[in-house]
């Protein structure tokens, strides 16, 4: 019934517009733009230009500190960031330049009864310029991009990497460490039973020392980590934005991605970008808490920065809340932590 009410409101608004339009329609006017209208619209185009560029600058200033920290938490991420900065700079330049051309021309050449347009239909020279300049710039970008891509994606030939499996299911992550042999045991959904939620094949000798963890996983600073991803049910995507890392988890298939963590959680918390961001978040949370407390509810806990693994491929109702904490430790701290974890085999027995 309420929908009917809103439809009625909509109808009322429409009738309002009808009335306005009638007023417009009643005056007989030129069918095409008049000299005055050309003039006004020409000036309005300058306004649009100011708005487009003003908005972009406003966004960059105002929203600069909500972005991911400039500092990449992985070595490979630094290459990506460099490429990103160059590309983004190029984009900004072209954006400013071309929009100014469009709207300035739109203003300058606004119609006037005294003007005549210039018949100018072709120029091979000009066209050569704007074919070859983008072509050259793009060649550089493509080569640089492909070089970076291959650097980042190559996980085949590493010295002593740490192997970890990330396992996705609706709506939870689990992690499995390869253990002392640094080889992951085989796994398949058909082996899922009781506590063996990842379907690890316990008859595989490589699986004997595999360690499984929930909710949070630790990785050591400075050692390449090669992840293997699997999914139990639908597509998921393991997204670790601070490490510039993402890979889909595909049922029936293993996928891989690797990076070398370079900033520990503790160090990242001392990063100026993060300090600013956390301060901003806590200001918002405090304001929210006041409202909550006034209503007799619990206040929000203050936020402390942590690396996160998020799901970034639509996977069902709780897709928006499928997360796992990542902790980057110094090697010594990592060793202490991993030695405290139980192997899957010991949990089963």
């Amino acid at each position, binding site marked *: 019934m309420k929908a009917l009410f*809103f439809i009625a409101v909509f109808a009322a608004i429409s009738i309002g517009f009808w009335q306005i339009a009638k007023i417009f329609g009643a005056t007989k006017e030129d*069918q095409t733009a008049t000299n005055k209208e050309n003039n006004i619209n020409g000036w309005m185009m300058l306004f649009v230009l100011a*708005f487009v560029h003003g908005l972009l600058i406003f966004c960059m200033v105002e929203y600069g500190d909500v972005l991911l920290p400039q500092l990449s938490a992985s070595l490979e*991420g630094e290459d990506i960031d460099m490429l990103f900065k160059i590309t983004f700079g190029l984009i900004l330049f072209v954006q400013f330049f071309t929009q100014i051309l469009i709207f300035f021309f739109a203003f300058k050449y606004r*119609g006037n009864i005294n003007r005549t347009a210039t018949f*100018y239909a072709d120029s091979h020279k000009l*066209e050569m310029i704007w074919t070859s300049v983008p072509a050259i710039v793009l060649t550089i970008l493509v080569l640089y991009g492909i070089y970076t891509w291959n650097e980042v994606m190559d996980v085949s030939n590493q010295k002593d990497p740490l192997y970890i499996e990330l396992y996705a299911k609706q709506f939870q992550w689990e992690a499995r460490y390869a253990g002392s042999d640094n080889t992951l045991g085989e796994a398949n*959904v058909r082996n899922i039973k009781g506590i063996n939620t990842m379907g690890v094949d316990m008859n595989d000798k490589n699986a004997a020392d595999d360690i499984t963890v929930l909710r949070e996983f630790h990785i050591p600073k400075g050692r390449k980590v090669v992840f293997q991803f699997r999914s139990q049910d639908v597509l998921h995507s393991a997204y670790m934005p601070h490490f510039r890392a993402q890979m889909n988890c595909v049922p029936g*298939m293993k996928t891989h991605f690797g990076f070398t963590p370079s900033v520990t959680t503790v160090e990242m918390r001392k990063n100026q970008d993060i300090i600013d961001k956390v301060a901003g978040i806590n200001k918002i949370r405090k304001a929210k808490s006041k409202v909550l407390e006034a209503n007799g509810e619990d206040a929000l806990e203050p936020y402390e920065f942590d690396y996160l693994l998020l799901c970034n491929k639509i996977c069902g109702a709780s897709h928006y809340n499928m997360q796992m904490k990542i902790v980057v430790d110094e090697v010594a701290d990592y060793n202490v932590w991993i030695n405290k974890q139980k192997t899957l085999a010991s949990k089963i027995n």
Partner: protein
Amino acid sequence: MSDHKQTFLTKYIFSTDHKMISKQYLITGIIMAVIGGFMSMLFRLQLAYPESHFTIIEAFLGKGGEGGQMTPDMYMGLVTIHGTIMVFFVLTAGLSGTFSNLLIPLQIGARDMASGFLNMISYWLFFLSSVIMVISIFVHSGMASAGWTIYPPLSALPQAMSGSGLGMDLWLISMAIFIAASLLGSLNYIVTILNLRTKGMTMTRLPLTIWAFLITAIIGLVSFPVLLSAALLLIFDRSFGTSFYLSDIFIQGEVLHYQGGSPILFEHLFWFLGHPEVYIILLPALGITSEVISTNSRKPIFGYRAMIGSMLGIAFLSTVVWGHHMFVTGMNPFLGSVFTFTTLLIAIPSAVKAFNYITTLWKGNIQYNVGMLFSIGMVSVFISGGLTGLILGDSALDINVHDTLFVVAHFHLVMGISALLGMFAGVYHWFPKMFGRMMNKKLGYIHFFITIVAAYGVFFPMHFTGLAGLPRRYFNNTAFPLFDDLAPINRVITWFALLGGSAQLIFLGNFFISIFKGQKAVQNPWKANTLEWTAPVEHFHGNWYGDIPEVKRWAYDYSKVDANGVPYEQDYAPQNMPLREGEEEF
């Protein structure tokens, strides 16, 4: 042939006249756009104020919006159907269907489409698919909600989400019918353009709109059948127990029997259509823009042949870049490199087009009719949105922004808003041809300026939420304190969205009132060169009384000068006007 008796049924409903079919497409498209657009308003409210209660959400969403708050399932249903409706029903059928039908026969000088009957069938299949899609929204178990890309296994397994039940079946059936409609249309457009051009209308005298429609139809013909097969295989997996896309699945406590398939196969098939689809949407809008900008600048379009060449280049490249949607699916890194290469190549013909538009404006005498404003807006948005493609098309950079709101902002600008602005430009420009009346100018101006401000206001800030790492398709981001500081941006986006949404009411009012009450149009209000303006204002089957006009020149002789550099008296020369004495064809 113009005088044969028509009943109400054959004139307005089962019409085989391309002009009537074009109007049918347009009005169906507008109705679908209202549905799809309204959905986006609802989920923008949810994103900006996740903790508030809205009567309007409860009123329209029923149990999916109980207490005025949206459920995650409902949210995902809304974004799925919003995407589907906007991409296929509005910007494919609504845009291409309307203007290809209206303009192809009129601009090439034909009395109708090659097959009026197929054309009618095409519209009615489209109508049927629209009806099924709308019905699927109201299914008890929920509308399809696996995203508009409907990746299996999520879309294949009713256990995985409630929207993958009957809602998904109807979605697939609707799309299968839609594709049939689209293919019939495309065939008809191609045959008509190649065979029914009037005397003198060589391929290099065709207006750029027609070139755009021709290339669009070819891309559609190549890629839509692949989506049909993808959809059929998905139907098999869902209903007949096959395993094309499914393997090794454990869900709700049991292992399913599927073995050996791969969801990646679906992604390949889907994006083999999905990426060309971007250009199926964009090229007609670019064609319309070319025509409108040239006419209203009173200048020939700059680089006519380069425009055709770049459209052909874009069309070819568009079929070999689909993998850039799949950089992080675990595809071979070498393949990723190849797709990066082909994808970034598209920037070259796109840059050529953009600069050609800018040069067309240069030293023009710009007549600010409403269509012109929208066309300039279209070029602006096309560049703003296209540029971020350099980031998303580059596999290394895509890793960290893939599937974030950065992507959403990018494609909404480059194909959503820009095609929409192109469509508006077309509606304002050819309204006199369609309905014999003018739309109100002043309302059109207001509509444009609010729309362009709102479009940028929505999608510029959205890029930044993506760069902050916010994934798309999150029904709210309160589960992550990390994203708490995005709330103010989300509110700004929503305010602009509501502003832009309400501005469309001005258009709707102007459009429907002008059909009945607008000023009577003269035959050639914009002083344009193309053949449709040589046809009488009133509509009848056959388009021209007497003989079809013969074409003597190309479509862009605006402000031409004679051999001594003196401008001719009349600043335009319709295509059927013979060359003046001493005049050379450009």
